[in-house]
């Protein structure tokens, strides 16, 4: 599936939105605008953006507490996202979810889950619903390398394979759980290899190359849509931050700066767009500026929004 230029440029815009959004989310946490924790997606932007670009707007997506990137890539509104993270009434979830529980059903993002892997069988069920209702939709389920160790991941692989569900497992392999390196938690060199046990394809792709992710995801989605069942797409990526606002772990501040620069998906893709003469050399800077401005508006909106009234406490428990 070929990308038209406008969409190719949109990929860069989305990566910048995510980058700027996460920088602000980190800053606001540091300045005490919200509590709990936040799990930045910086460095991994190409995975969410490339994968979601290969999906249709109506394709449901599920992700983790490290879900801001996927939420933006799926097309949600950064203003309501930031307001949610700050626990505001205007947030996507009226402040009840916070950073780890973003969801936006209006764009098919259902949603972030804070329990590692718990959303994987749910993604299977959402995919089963698509199959039963012949919607033609494909479901994408994002999760990490660590999550791929939880039993329910394998259980869902087996069921999805048995029932040939329209489901794509997207493993965001950023090399670490919190502090545990994949070499200490996964007994094989590539997580994609897990798929062999279930009889469906597993592919490993450079998760910092937005076009490579897009291509792999397009193939997986096409396969799922045509009724051939699930695919496991392992995106090898890297996170630029500590695990979360609360937990260090994994990459040490600075010590990996070299690798970060080398793998940074944004300049890499910017340069590609420029050399392909799809955009002018000064366009990337303008795109960055636009993203910064947009996210600053989102921050302003979030900060100025009201907190939920205590009356909300008993609302939305039962339908």
């Amino acid at each position, binding site marked *: 599936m070929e990308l038209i230029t406008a969409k190719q440029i949109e990929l860069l815009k989305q990566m910048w939105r995510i980058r700027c959004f996460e920088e602000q989310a980190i800053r606001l946490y540091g300045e005490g605008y919200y509590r709990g924790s936040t799990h930045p997606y910086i460095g991994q932007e190409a995975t969410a953006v490339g994968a979601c670009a290969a999906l249709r707007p109506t394709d449901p997506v599920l992700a983790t507490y490290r879900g801001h990137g996927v939420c933006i890539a799926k097309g949600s509104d950064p203003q309501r996202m930031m307001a949610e993270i700050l626990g505001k009434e205007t947030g996507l979830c009226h402040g009840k*979810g916070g950073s780890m529980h973003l969801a936006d059903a209006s764009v098919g993002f*259902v949603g972030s889950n804070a329990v590692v892997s*718990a959303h994987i069988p749910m993604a299977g*069920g959402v995919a*089963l619903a698509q199959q039963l209702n012949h919607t033609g939709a494909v479901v994408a389920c994002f999760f990490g390398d660590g999550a791929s160790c939880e039993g329910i991941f394998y259980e869902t692989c087996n*069921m999805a394979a048995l029932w040939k569900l329209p489901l794509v497992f997207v493993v965001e392999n950023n090399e670490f759980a919190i502090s545990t390196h994949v070499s200490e938690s996964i007994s094989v060199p590539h997580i994609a290899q897990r798929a062999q046990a279930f009889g469906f394809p597993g592919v490993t792709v450079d998760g910092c190359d937005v076009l490579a992710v897009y291509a792999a995801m397009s193939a997986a989605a096409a396969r799922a849509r045509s009724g051939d069942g699930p695919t496991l797409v392992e995106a090898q990526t890297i996170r630029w931050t500590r695990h979360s606002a609360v937990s260090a772990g994994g990459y040490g501040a600075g010590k990996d700066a070299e690798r970060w620069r080398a793998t940074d998906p944004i300049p890499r893709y910017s340069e590609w767009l420029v050399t392909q003469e799809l955009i002018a050399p000064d366009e990337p800077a303008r795109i960055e500026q636009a993203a910064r401005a947009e996210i600053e508006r989102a921050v302003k909106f979030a900060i100025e929004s009201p907190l939920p009234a205590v009356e909300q406490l008993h609302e939305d428990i*039962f339908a």
Partner: protein
Amino acid sequence: MPELTYAQALNQALREEMWRDPNIVLLGEDIGKYGGVFGVTRGLYDEFGGARVRDCPLNEASIVGFGIGLALAGMRAVTELEFMDFCTYAMDQITNQAPKLRYIWGGQVKVPLVVRMPIVAELGFGSQHSQSLEAWFMHVPGLKVAIPSTAYDAKGLLKTALRDDNPIVFIENVKLYATKSEIPDDEYLISFGKADIKREGDAVTIVAISAMVPEALQAADELARVGISAEVIDPRTLAPLDADTIIASVQKTGRLIVAHKAHKTGGVGAEIAQLVSERAFDALDAPVVRVAAQDVPIAASQPLEAATFPGAKELVSAARKLVNR
């Protein structure tokens, strides 16, 4: 009116609602061609097909997780766990996911999910197959908990559950599957949060759960012979709990016994007793009495199992002691 067993009544409720609502999908182990380990889903596979009555591999956590996913996608899922004890494999999905997603996502989704699970106590299956764990679910906000004791209630409550847009833990009882009620030909529903007074009396109130209800009725007969008039109340749902009906009864009798086959410590008897103490303290002539299973793992050997679970006999002596206190 035809007499149906508890299992048949559940089966009828599923069948009627599946005809009524094409969105209902069943997930579980051996629920398809086989009809369920205890026969509750018998015939549904033939009637509705394998797409809606789905045999799953052995993976309880994912069975419930798939059910939640179906619900998130606008369908209605009924998941069966073969023995209540196996809810431990699906505990995250049942307690951290299903009852919380609507709230943490600010009302964006509904989770119409029924998790059916039977208590299998007193049949000699031993420690890992004989537990009554309803107290765990009563402690989880966002969950509704039904625990019927008769075929009639089982059908009416399950039909209501199948029209409710929220996650429900539906607790059945294998010991009761063969017990019968007259089931009206006309459709009926039983709403959650309405206790049923199974027998009226004025000397002592017995709140009984699941398989303790028939024991309580038997005890009431025996107590009547010695001139003690016992009122037997079945809450039928623990969440919501119909405290008003229980308290009204205690206002009348002044004495309360809460009876269940779950272990005594931390069982729902404590919650019900304390609720009544909080709201009707002055009506109580004596402390609420709990009649419950001993706090020991459940042995397979018959005499040990028999010594673990209470029955009509224990209820009778508890009631006599309480009344003659």
